[in-house]
């Protein structure tokens, strides 16, 4: 328990440090909090060979801002996504309830920024904690999702105005390069892992061949006085293949968010070019 609290403290400190560093650099920092929902497609072969689909709700908190290096070419993105879903198979007979917390921090370098086009690339740290519960299974009722990764991330963005409204399109691809994830073996029960303590082989090394995630989005922003509302369509794709079992989740979400800028630089044309969305 102490280790867990220490871990939470470190995460909270890192979260705060991101903002503090950006504040010290006196550069643009954008903070967005979005809430939405949509459609989920799920396959977890440990629980069922059938594909499940249904609805989800999602809360996303994100900070994106310049870091104090290289004349504003480095950006930091800190993101926390909390996702809860409720899915059924095509037959309608089964039911799963799932939840996932996904935190990532990315240091982006921006090699391209011209005519509204921006390209960001950089290393990313990922932490994922979640689970799925299948209401009618016997000794394989649930799947615990735990993963820590070092990933490469690329973020492409195009900002433009349409009917005098600022819009942006963006695509973000995160490719986990190296990490560790928890997953029971092909026919291993949680009774064996947690009750008998035979957990050997449950922690898998992950690399692009067995772990991938992809995020695409289309954003539309409306400025209301000093704040900005953002309407986003977002697609998230996760894939884990661990212990001869597969887990895939594809979500389509529509999200409405509140965007705030720490120094309220929206009216500053010079600063506006650094606005990431």
């Amino acid at each position, binding site marked *: 328990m102490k280790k867990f609290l220490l871990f939470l403290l470190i995460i909270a400190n890192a979260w705060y440090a991101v903002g503090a560093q950006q504040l010290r650099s006196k550069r643009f920092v954008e903070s967005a909090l979005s809430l939405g929902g949509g459609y989920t497609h799920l*396959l977890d*072969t440990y629980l*069922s*060979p*059938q*594909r499940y689909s249904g609805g989800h709700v999602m809360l996303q908190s994100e900070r994106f801002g310049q870091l104090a290096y290289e004349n504003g070419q480095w950006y930091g993105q800190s993101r926390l996504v909390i996702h809860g879903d409720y899915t059924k*198979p*095509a*037959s*309608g*007979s*089964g039911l799963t309830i799932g939840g996932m917390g996904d935190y990532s921090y990315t240091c982006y370098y921006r090699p391209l920024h011209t*005519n509204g*086009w921006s390209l960001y690339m950089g290393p990313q740290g990922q932490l994922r904690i979640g689970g799925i519960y*299948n209401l*009618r*299974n*016997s*000794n*394989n*009722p649930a799947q615990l999702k735990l993963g820590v990764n070092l990933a490469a991330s690329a973020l*492409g963005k*195009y900002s*433009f105005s*349409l009917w005098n409204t600022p819009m942006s*399109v963006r*695509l973000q*691809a995160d490719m986990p390069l190296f990490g560790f994830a928890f997953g029971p*073996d*092909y*026919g*291993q*029960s949680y*009774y*064996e892992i947690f*009750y*008998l303590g*035979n957990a*050997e*082989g449950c922690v898998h090394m992950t690399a*692009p*061949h*067995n772990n*991938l995630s*992809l995020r*695409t989005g289309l954003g539309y922003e409306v400025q209301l006085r000093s704040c900005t509302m953002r309407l986003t369509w977002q697609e998230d*794709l996760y*894939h884990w*293949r661990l*212990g*001869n079992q*597969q887990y*895939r989740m594809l979500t389509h979400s529509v999200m409405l968010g509140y965007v705030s800028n720490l120094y309220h630089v929206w009216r500053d044309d010079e600063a506006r070019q650094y606005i990431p969305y």
Partner: protein
Amino acid sequence: MKNHFQFLIFNFQFFIALCAVFLSSCTKVETYEDTPTGNFEALWHIIDTKYCFLDYKAEEYGLNWNTVYRRYKRKIDDGMSHAGLFEVLGEMLDELRDGHVNLYAAHDVARYWDFREGYAANFSEEIQARYLGTDYKIASGLRYTILPDNIGYVYVPSFSNGIGEGNLDECLHALALCRGLIVDVRDNGGGNLSYAETLAARFTNERVLTGYIYHKTGPGHTDFSTPEPIYLESSDRLRWQKPVCVLTNRSSYSATNDFVKMMRTLPLVTIVGDRTGGGSGLPFSSELPNGWSVRFSACPSFDVDMQHTEFGIDPDVKVEMTDEDCAKGIDTIIETARTLLAR
């Protein structure tokens, strides 16, 4: 505006390219149509890749799952009714001779109960009631009393009902002055393995090796992990120190079979009655395209000699209830245990 569309096309192409990389890295997951043929194929494939006793049962009685496929495939027709399909699939699963294998539909449950239905019951609630009386005590999943010859009697009808440490403390404390104890697990069809272990832990003063467990590591019939030992840890609370008889019959199944497997390794314990029903595979669940749920043995366990107990455990003292005793209201198995404990 043209640039906008160019970007969208680029975006889309990039996405497709990444998806292609993603999909190429995936292992193919078989998909089946929701037709009688599709559901048959799905069920056969689930058992073929996940059932844990295919090789063992091939050795025991010649089960050949590929032959089963050919034999039952001929009985499948896409025009057949749901009831007809259910019957054929149920018959196919019966080939596994496993009480842990079931097919659940809205109208019925396909099951294999031959492990007990073809044998003497060796248990009668009416006769048992003569021993328990009406003033027996109930501690969660335990019913207990003291027999006239100062033998404690505990009946455990199921391991699905919680057995807490407090329940066991009270029960053993109440029976502490008895000279021996009968733990009756006849007609106990199983339940939670941890409850069985909680009870067994009250009968040992030291950590004891009781068996082994392993699991499948892949879809092949022989893809198994290294067997891991299972130890019974001694309880740090009130423990029984006198002789014990565990009463069994063919309906002592699943977690109860596991309980007997643990108890027979202990020095003061004698197993009395009939062979247990077996059921040593930890069951998992899966489902078919039409929504029917299937349960099957996924993780096998062995006894301390690395022998399967899937088809049951023989008692130390084999006794069956005789018709003569039954007519007199006497439980032959309880009486045998009382005699053994009185020595």
